[in-house]
């Protein structure tokens, strides 16, 4: 395995008495798609917020490209090449789709014409080509997810953190967006994705980490993780793995 682009080392985050993330460690190899799954409230989004600089960890360290980036503010991490999407899409509602993407494109392109051209190119890449002049608040949920993706891509990231870009989409919408994510990875952008939609995350990622109650309880290839009794129990309840085992006779 290649040198990891991102490594999270024993990161914890407390909110008062609540330990939302508990000594979680994970790493993402450069150029791959790494999945982060777990039941509701496991701390996935909190962990993402820490990696992208929106929250400071209570303990632990985050390395990116070998450098310690713990506690750096989001805008500086964006400049380093870390982009994130938001679980609940956060469009600039009053602006057109094109102007939404333009904000990101301006990060490395100060000139307006160049940034506009880049915004248009990225918009087409994610399939928003015909909606560029539409106000962002008229987009459907699927459109908003694409816009999240487009804005993040516009900053020309090296690492893309996708927070449930498939959640809330219907199966045909998911089928449309999965190839886009593959294509992004094909361009050499490292992806870490939080996902609820199991089927998609299992087919997309090479390596999966499972977070439950703030801890990483399992990791491995999608098949290994799916067969891990700890993971099955986390999702289906205590004793579920044993029951499943007897039913299927494994």
């Amino acid at each position, binding site marked *: 395995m290649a040198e990891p682009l991102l490594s999270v080392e024993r990161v914890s985050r407390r909110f008062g008495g609540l330990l939302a993330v508990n000594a979680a460690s994970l790493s993402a190899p450069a150029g791959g798609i790494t999945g982060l799954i777990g039941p509701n409230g496991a701390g996935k989004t909190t962990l993402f917020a820490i990696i*992208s600089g*929106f929250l400071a960890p209570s303990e632990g360290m985050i390395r990116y490209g070998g450098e310690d980036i713990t506690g750096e*503010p*989001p*805008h*500086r991490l*964006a*400049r380093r090449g870390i*982009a*994130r999407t*938001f679980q609940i899409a*956060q*469009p*600039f*509602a*009053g*602006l057109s789709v094109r*102007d939404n993407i*333009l*904000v*990101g494109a*301006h*990060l490395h392109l*100060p000139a*307006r014409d160049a*940034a506009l051209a880049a915004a248009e190119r990225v918009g087409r890449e994610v*399939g928003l080509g*015909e*909606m560029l002049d539409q106000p962002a608040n008229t*987009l*459907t949920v*699927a*459109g908003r997810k694409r816009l999240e993706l487009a*804005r*993040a891509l*516009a*900053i020309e990231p090296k690492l893309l953190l996708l927070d449930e870009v498939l959640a809330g989409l*219907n199966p*045909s*919408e998911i*089928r*449309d*967006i999965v*190839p*886009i994510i593959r294509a992004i990875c094909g361009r050499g952008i490292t992806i870490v994705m939080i996902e609820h939609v199991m089927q998609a995350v299992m087919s997309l990622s090479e390596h999966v980490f499972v977070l439950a109650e703030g801890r990483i309880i399992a990791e491995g290839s999608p098949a290994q993780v799916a067969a891990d009794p700890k993971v099955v129990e986390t999702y289906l309840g205590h004793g579920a793995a044993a029951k499943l085992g007897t039913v299927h006779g494994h």
Partner: protein
Amino acid sequence: MNRLLPIVVVAAALAAVPVVVESNAVLNFLVVALLIALAGQGWNILGGYGGQYSFGHAAFFGTGAYVTAILQVRYGVNAWVAFAGAVAAGAVVGAVIGALTFPSGLRGSYFALVTLAFAEVLRIVASVAPITGAGVGTLIKLDLRAQALQFQSRAVFYWIILGLVAISLLIAHLLERSRFGVWLIAVRENEDAARALGVDATRVKLGAMVLSAAITATAGCFYAQYFLFVDAGIAYGTWISIEALLTPIIGGAGTVFGPLLGALVVKALGEAAKLAAGDAPGLDLIVYGAVLVLVIWFAPRGLIGAVTDMRMRLTRRSLPSRSPAREVSRG
């Protein structure tokens, strides 16, 4: 360059007024309206484009007015130099207030209240400090020469303030098309999303505050030069904070022409009310209040916003409606 055409046309049309109209009352009305438009454009940069609603732009207006007056009267500085120095002083006050509020994450009504408090503190200090002339105020000596930035003819003053307003329109126009402006609007729309895209929100807001303060301070400088008198109630009074925010909101916050349109409409209605009902104190405030309620009710994005909305609705009606289902099938 045809994007600049509206600014050129409006400025040229307004510049022709003194050639056609000789009434001093009309010119005086327009000078005051343009003065408010300039102060309002300052507010518009921070409030309209940046979404940071200040209730204390008097802090900048007053600093501009006082520094212009005091440099001339107490230190014998040339009026033009004093004018430039006062604009810079306004920008510094903006930088200080911005540096004290934005990094600590003050937003929304908290930001509004803190700016109001700054302006009030400055007003109280100015009403007792010896350097400002305390309660008596500061009078600039009458000296009708160009090097003293004073003119016999009202028309010259009018053209000067018009020139300043035209520059402020140009600044807003350039802002809209610059990276800084795009980032500023992004911060207004959604600060967290902007930060995730590499926007240093604190720095962008601070920059907007400095630019905003400098423009509103320029209006203050002009006020001092035009009326040749400044006291605490005029310079740092809440009246100017209110007018500076009212005019862009009524005209259309976050638009190039919003403050100018708002100032002309609001001031014209205020004058009309005075003509109709006599010069009752506070009448103009009642008119402002009524206009504000009507605008927020019927045109929440201001007069210019209402016009663009209407135009969009008309063009949309003429186009076949777009079904959202089409989006799904695209891959």
